[in-house]
């Protein structure tokens, strides 16, 4: 029995189809949505959403944070931004990573909220680069 997955960014619907499993990056660790999963709402961090047909990963999308709404029959991912892994521009992402690293170096080390925000962004861009270059675990 498949589960209906939707990946929606503010601009458009990227994916809307049936798959067997979705693995997504929850704020507190990766989580898989499968049919008959208990209803759940979670916060996503920047990372990779993988769609599985059977046991094989079919498609990968990068999401830059967002929310997910899981029910036994469907899984809706509201992404702040979403890109298919095949369309990621590594050069552009690398440039952004460098920018963020610089900002990290210059940031006030006592401003914890800002540091946490930066760290989350850096991890998100790092995940984007990993996904784009294909060395995702």
């Amino acid at each position, binding site marked *: 029995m498949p589960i209906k997955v939707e990946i*929606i960014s503010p601009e458009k619907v990227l994916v809307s189809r049936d798959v067997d499993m979705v693995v997504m990056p929850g704020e507190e660790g990766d989580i898989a949505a499968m049919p008959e999963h208990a*209803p*759940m709402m979670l916060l996503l961090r920047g990372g990779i959403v993988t769609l599985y047909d059977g046991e094989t990963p079919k498609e990968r999308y990068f999401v830059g944070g967002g929310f997910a709404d899981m029910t036994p029959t469907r899984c809706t991912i509201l992404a702040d931004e979403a890109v298919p892994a095949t369309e990621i521009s590594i050069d552009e992402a690398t440039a952004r990573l460098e920018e963020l690293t610089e900002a990290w170096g210059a940031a006030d080390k006592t401003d914890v909220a800002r540091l946490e925000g930066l760290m989350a962004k850096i991890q998100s861009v790092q995940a984007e680069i990993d996904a784009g270059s294909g060395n995702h675990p």
Partner: protein
Amino acid sequence: MASLKELRARIGSVKSTRKITSAMKMVAAAKLRRAQSHAEAARPYAAAMRQMLGELAGAMAGQDGAPQLLAGTGNDRVHLLIPITSDRGLAGGFNSNINRTTKLTIRRLQAEGKTVKLLPVGRKGFDFLSRDYADLIIDHVIGVGGKEIPFSAASDLGAKITKRLENGEFDVCTVIYNQFRNVMSQVPTPLQLIPLGLDATEAKPDPDAAQYEFEPDEQTLLERLLPRNLQVQIYATLLESAAGEQGARMTAMDNATRNAGKAIDRLTQTYNRTRQTNITNELIEIISGAQAL
């Protein structure tokens, strides 16, 4: 009676006006289609967002300490109005409708003794309101209604509003925008953003469904969802307003083109009559001259 030369010049100028208006109509029609598909593509996100908020609000019902974005400040004293207009004119009543509605709302609120603050979006609204209510304008945004509206425009605006709310600068926030009914009609509509009118009917938890789990807790999720929801709502109004602008411009330019066509017909008729009169007069002069000999 105008001379033939003057008439020819008039006809020429109306013809070129007609060319311009009909070109503008075509452009608006093409842009309208794009704007409409954008507005449509953005709808599922807003719908899913509303559903999630509904579930969350349902789960949190009865708990206190709801964030300000949801419950407001508890006061109803300072109103922030955000009229959304376009940057360019020549769109019929599109902008003046919004401006009129805004003006009426300001008057009504002031008559009720409320303080009004303005944050106009779009050049036309800003220019208009600067004339009468310059002292009420706390900020403005121009250049949003371009070719494509990036989501960042909405999130910037949302961040501005959230910050002002946190600073306690206003109690109620309302957007006034043109709701897109169809190509012919756009309706100026007020939409209250803060406090968010999330009524119980919208939060309709399915009694058969199992209890939702939240990760992290409801409070944190709600705190993250609400600013996002604000941005999404603003984004939706911006997109709708952009589609409405093109629709209004298309209708206005269609009318203008038709009027120009009528004016050309009328002028051409006057031109021909004048020409005929002149020829007749000349003939009479020649004939009477010949008879006199």
